C-alpha cells in the first residue's frame, strides 16, 4: 500500500542530515553571522554547530533564537521557559506575516525549503520545533496542534457521557491538553460525599487517562496505512499519582498529558491537572495498551499532504510517533 521512496532513503543514509549536503565554508559562516546578527550569540553558535555537524540536537536553540528575535522585547521573557505550548499568535504576538519572516530566516539558516501549506498549522512553539526537527531528520511531519470541540471528542472517543470528562481539547504530536468543568450534575457527586460534592480523585485520574486515549486517536502519527483502533485501548497501570487539591463543582480542571514512551502495544504518559495556577493532581506515569488496524481507505491523500516521504527501513522504530525529546 505504501511504498517508501528507496532512492530517497538510500541517499539519506549517505548524507543523513540535509545541512551536510555541502560543507560549511568560512564564507557560509560570514553569511550566517550576517543573517543572524539580531539573534543572540548562542543562537548563532547553535546554528554554526548544526551547519557543521548536521546534528539536530542544536535545532531547538536555533528555532527558539530565531523566534525570540521577532518577538517584542517585553514578551521575550516568556520564551525563557521555552514552554512548548506557548502559542505563536496569542502568547507571542506573532502574526502571519511575522511567521513568514521567521520561516525565511530559518530557511536561510538551516538551508531548507518550507512550503506555505506546511506552515498553516504551526500554532505553538512546540509545533514549530517539532516541525523543523522532522523536516531535518526527513521524518514524516508531525500532526499540528488540533483544537477539538466536544462534538469531535464525543465522535471519536470510545468513552461516552455520562462518563466522558473532557469538554474541549487540543492535541498535537507532542501531547494533549484539555478542560473539564465540574458542573455539579455528575451523578456520582450525589454520593461523593454526603452533602459535600467533591470530585473523586479516581475520576480525575480517569479524566487524564481519557485525554491520553484522545492523544492516541488524534495525535499519534501511526504506521503508514494504519490507524489506532478505538476499541483496543485499555488502561494497564499508573505510578506516582498524588492529589494536591480538593476539586468541587464550578472548578475548571486544566488537564495535560505528554507521551513519555511509545512502544507497541504500550503507551506511557505523564499527566497533570491544574485548577487555575494550583496543582490538583500529578501522575508520573499512566500506561495504556493500544493496537493498530488497517486504515479504511484514502491513506494516499493523507500521505500526499504530509509532503515528506516516510521511511520504513528496519532501523526505524515501528512507531513514527515523532516524539521530540526536549
Amino acid at each position, binding site marked *: 500500500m505504501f511504498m517508501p521512496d528507496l532512492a530517497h532513503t538510500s541517499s539519506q543514509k549517505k548524507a543523513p542530515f540535509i545541512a551536510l549536503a555541502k560543507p560549511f565554508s568560512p564564507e557560509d559562516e560570514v553569511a550566517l553571522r550576517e543573517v543572524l546578527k*539580531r539573534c543572540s550569540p548562542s543562537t548563532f553558535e547553535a546554528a554554526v554547530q548544526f551547519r557543521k555537524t548536521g546534528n539536530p540536537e542544536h535545532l531547538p536553540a536555533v528555532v527558539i533564537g530565531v523566534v525570540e528575535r521577532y518577538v*517584542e522585547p517585553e514578551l521575550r521573557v516568556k520564551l525563557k521557559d521555552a514552554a512548548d505550548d506557548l502559542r505563536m499568535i496569542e502568547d507571542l504576538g506573532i502574526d502571519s*506575516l*511575522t511567521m*513568514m*519572516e521567521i520561516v*525565511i530566516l530559518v*530557511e*536561510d539558516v538551516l538551508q531548507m*525549503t518550507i512550503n506555505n501549506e506546511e506552515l498553516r498549522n504551526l500554532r505553538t512553539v512546540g509545533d514549530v520545533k517539532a516541525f523543523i526537527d522532522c523536516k531535518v531528520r526527513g521524518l514524516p511531519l508531525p500532526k499540528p496542534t488540533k483544537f477539538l470541540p466536544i462534538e469531535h471528542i464525543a465522535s471519536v472517543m470510545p468513552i461516552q457521557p455520562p462518563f466522558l470528562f473532557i469538554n474541549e481539547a487540543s492535541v498535537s504530536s507532542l501531547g494533549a491538553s484539555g478542560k473539564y468543568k465540574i458542573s455539579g450534575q455528575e451523578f456520582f457527586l450525589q454520593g461523593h460525599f454526603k452533602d459535600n460534592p467533591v470530585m473523586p480523585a479516581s475520576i480525575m485520574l480517569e479524566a487524564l487517562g481519557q485525554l491520553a486515549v484522545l492523544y492516541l486517536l488524534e495525535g499519534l502519527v501511526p504506521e503508514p496505512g494504519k490507524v489506532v483502533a478505538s476499541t483496543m485501548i485499555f488502561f494497564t497501570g499508573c505510578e506516582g499519582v498524588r492529589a494536591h487539591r480538593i476539586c468541587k463543582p464550578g472548578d475548571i480542571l486544566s488537564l495535560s498529558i505528554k507521551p513519555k514512551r511509545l512502544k507497541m502495544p504500550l503507551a506511557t504518559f505523564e499527566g497533570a491537572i491544574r485548577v487555575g495556577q494550583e496543582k490538583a493532581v500529578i501522575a508520573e506515569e499512566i500506561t495504556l495498551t493500544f493496537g493498530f488496524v488497517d486504515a479504511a481507505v484514502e491513506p494516499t491523500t493523507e500521505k500526499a499532504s504530509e509532503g515528506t516521504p516516510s521511511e520504513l527501513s528496519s532501523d526505524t522504530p515501528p512507531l513514527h510517533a515523532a516524539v521530540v525529546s526536549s
Partner: protein
Amino acid sequence: MPRVFITGLGFITSIGNDSTTVEQSLRHLSHGFELYPAFNRPEIPCKVVGTVKGFFTDAVDQEDWRYPDTYSFKRELMRTMAPHGLYAHCALLQAIKDARLQEADVSNPATGLYTSSGGSPYLTNYHHNRVETLGVMRCSPFGIVSSIVGTLNFNLVAAFKIHGSSCGFSSACASSAHALGFAFDEITLGRQKRMFVVGAEDGNKDAILPFAGMRTLSLQTDPQLASRPFDKGRDGFVGTGGATVLVLESEDEVMKRGVTPYCEVVGWGQASDGYNVAISHPEGAGLQVAMKHALASAQVTPQHIDYINAHATSTLIGDISEVKAIKAVFPDSVKKPWVSSTKALTGHGLSLAGAMESGFSALALKHGFMPGSAHITEVDPACVGIALLRKTETIAPSYIMKNASGFGGANVSIVFKKV
C-alpha cells in the same frame, strides 16, 4: 461651497526637519545641499544632493535605520516602510501635532489621506535581486508593500487608522500638487471634512541617479552652483528627498476646533501639454491653461497674485517654458507677481515637490515673507519680463500661486490666500 484651510504642516526636508527650521532656511536662503557620499565614485557624473539630515536609511534592513530621538518606531511598523515612508510618517506626526488634532480627529470616516511618491527604486532593486539570486520564496513578504508606488498610502492609512478617502497620485513631479488639488475638491464637494496631503521621496542614489541618464541632473560639484533656476549657467536639477504633510480642513472644522490656519486654499487648476513624454511644451502651453484655470477656480484675477512659487527646477528647457507661461498669463499690462524657485535651496523633490513647496507657500503667507530665488549670478536673458525675486522679501503676500509640472506635460497650479 465649503472653504478649505491649511491648519497643519510637517516637514522632513533637505532644509529642515520642522517648520521653524524650514522657515529660517527660506528666509536666509540657506540651502540643503551636500556632496552625496553614494555619488562619490568616478563613474557617477553628478555629485550634489539635497540630503535629509538626522536620518540614516541607506540600508535594506529597516532595523538598521536611524532617526532623530524625537521619534520612536517599532519593528512591526518599520518593516513595511520605504525610506520615504519613514520620512512621511515623521512629517505626518508633526502635522497632526501642529494642527492640534486628537486621535479621533485623525481616524474617522470624514478624514482622508492622499499621497504621492515615486515608490522606492532602492528597495525594489534589492527585492528583485533576491528573486534572481535566491529565488522567489526567499523574498521578504514585505517586498511589495515597502517598495511599489503606493507604499505611502498602504503604510500611513494602516498606521494612522485612516477611515476616509485614500489613494495615491502618480503624475511624476506634479503628483503631490495633484494630490493637494483633489484633496481640496474632496472637501469642497462635502465628501470629507479633513484631508492629509502627503508628498515624499527616498531621494537616495537609486531614486535620483536614473535622471542622470536623461541628462537632466546638474553636474556641478559646488553646492552653491548646482541648483540655480533662472540662472544663465544652470545645467540641470539637483535631486532631493524627504516628506511634507499638509492638513486641509473645511471652514466648519476650523471654526469648531478654534485653530488658526496658515492660509486658505482658494482654488486650483490643471491642464496637459499633450506634447512630449519628457519635455515641457516650449511655450508652457499646458501650464498657461492650468494657471488660468486656477485663477478662475479661485475667483481672482492675475492682479491679485503677489508671488508665484515656480516649478522651475534649474533645467535648461523647463525653466524657460514656465517663464513663457507666466508671461502669457501675467502680461506687461498688469502688476507683475514676484517669481522665485525654492528648488534653488532644496533641490527637486520630484513627487514631493508640489506638497513641499505648497508648505513653503503656507509658511510665507502665515509669517509674511516671500522667499527669494537663490544662487542666481546672471539671470538668463530669456527671463526678461517676469519679476524675479532674488532676495527674500519681508513683504506679506496676500495671494500665492504654486506651479507644478510633471512628465507627459502634466501641469498643476494652486492658489493660496492669506487669512
